[in-house]
């Protein structure tokens, strides 16, 4: 059974790896081997699960997911990255997705915050106000 200390360690490690970027990934394997040495299989699994969860969360915080009805030009994407990277130490990674259901406009996700400027969302708000 992973203790809360193990869980904290997994989170801290995930944060360090994401912050360090490629260098962090290179140093991850020996670090994990050192931490997991002498632990039971169950504890290793729990630790890695916590680490994975925390890493995904940290990566999402550094990733700008842009959804739009049609693919956006690189200029628009770079403008978005510049705008959302304001006040951050490192520029954000950008992932583009197309979703025709948005009709027009776009939906941007950064971490667990979603900015929805799609036509589909505006129409839904209109429908809610009439209902």
């Amino acid at each position, binding site marked *: 059974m992973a203790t809360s200390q193990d869980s904290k360690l997994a989170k801290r490690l995930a944060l360090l790896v994401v912050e360090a970027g490629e260098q962090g990934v290179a140093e991850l394997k020996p670090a994990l081997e050192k931490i997991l040495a002498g632990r039971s299989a169950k504890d290793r699994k729990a630790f890695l699960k916590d680490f994975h*969860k925390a890493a995904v969360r940290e990566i999402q915080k550094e990733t700008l997911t842009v959804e739009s009805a049609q693919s956006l030009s690189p200029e628009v994407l770079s403008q978005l990255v510049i705008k959302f990277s304001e006040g951050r130490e490192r520029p954000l990674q950008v992932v583009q997705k197309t979703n025709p259901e948005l009709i027009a406009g776009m939906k941007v996700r950064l*971490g*667990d915050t*979603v900015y*929805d400027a799609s036509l589909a969302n505006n129409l839904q*708000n*209109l429908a809610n106000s*009439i209902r």
Partner: protein
Amino acid sequence: MSSILEQIEKEITALKPGVSKTNTGVITAVADGVAKAEGLSQVMYNEMVEFPHGITGIALNLEEDEVGIVCLGDANLLKQGDEVKTTGRLLSVPVGRVMLGRVVDAIGQPVDGKGPIDATEHYPIEKIAPGIIPRKSVDQPLQTGIMAIDSMIPIGRGQRELIIGDRQTGKTTIAIDTIINQAKINRQGLASGDESFRPVYSIYVAIGQKNSTIARTINALEKAGALEYTIIVVAAAAENAANLFLAPFAGTAMGEWFMQNGMDALIIYDDLTKQAAAYRQISLVLKRPAGREAYPGDVFYLPSRLLERSARLNPDNGNGSLTALPIIETQAGDVAAYIPTNVISITDGQIFLETDLFNQGIRPAVSVGLSVSRVGSAAQIKATKQVAGRVKLELAAYRELAAFAQFGSDLDARTRRQLDRGSRTVELFKQPAYSPKAVEIQVALLWAMQNDHFDDIEVEDIVSAASSLEDYLSTGKQDLLGKILSQKKLDESIEAELTEAVTAWRSTFKSA
């Protein structure tokens, strides 16, 4: 049709396309009406969140990586991986006069099939209770119409009086009687055109009851013409624990609207034991640490934050009031159990109902010794004080004497007289369900008892004698009853008229 199109056109014209910012999360687990979600890093405690399929929930547990959310709809429709969004709002319910006569669920949605409720105002279900400054001491009576209560354990507007007892001892009946009596008084008062008359609106919160029981209660209120002054909030036994937990808060918000708008309201929580059990269920599913009887540590805070919102406000704050009659079910008469002691310590008194008395046919089965109203006679009209001032002590002394009298037959005259009077008073206080008595009738009956007019009637005939005297007074002596009601005290002339009326009635009444 054209008006609908016009409205749609108007909405489209007014539409300002913009960017909406929401904090989102993903469901990681759903069980027992509680969803666990990851993300939602900006969610607030008690904030409403939105799930797919129009289901809402309330964020109750904010942990480092997870949020525990109680679902207010059908949690079976949710699955792992579904998105959940914050709304930035606290759970609110519709309030106002439009709610009167309606049956709603824990979130204020109608369940009576009478169509949507056109409410213009909404109140959050959780609100900070009025502080010390806007409050005023309780001094106006709230008549339950039950003689044993109005004379011995008076309830005032703004008071919190607990109704406590085992199952099947008549707790709900007392509550329903009180609502019916308010409706009767409201009808009379509003018809009289008296501008100073303040009607009392009722809110009945049914928590964890069978639907058949709720239907019976609604039927009783409808039959008595009390539904038009009443809001019924229903969280039936089959509903999820979150609804049972929230229904009392929703009812309180509805009652608060009346209080804050200068009106008087009465709220009945039937019963808070089931709310506490629902809260325990939610807390255990949320993996909160369990304490005594597996209740979470903050279960004490649950009834207190509910009942503290009942108050009498001073004239500067509208002079409104919210009176609370919480109900608690005990197990085998144990008033010292965890939840009963919690609620007893919060309320301003309790009406304790005893199974033994109920089984002996003494109904309402009010235990004189264990029942108390901490507001006391401040919430009684002078006429009631004049005739009922000694009754509680007399009755308590009678119970003690009656226990001793079983062991011997040689009793002195004084003791015998006390026993006779006590047994007659017990009979006089017997009252069938759903038939509250007006205060002037109560005064007249108690006056007759105190002035020995029932002394030559056999004990077993007291109930029929009281009923006969009530009929006699309400049909032939309305002027006298009107005087008692308007003057609110018994002066020499009224007492003379009462003597004359009761003597005249006595000559017509014959024991069976």
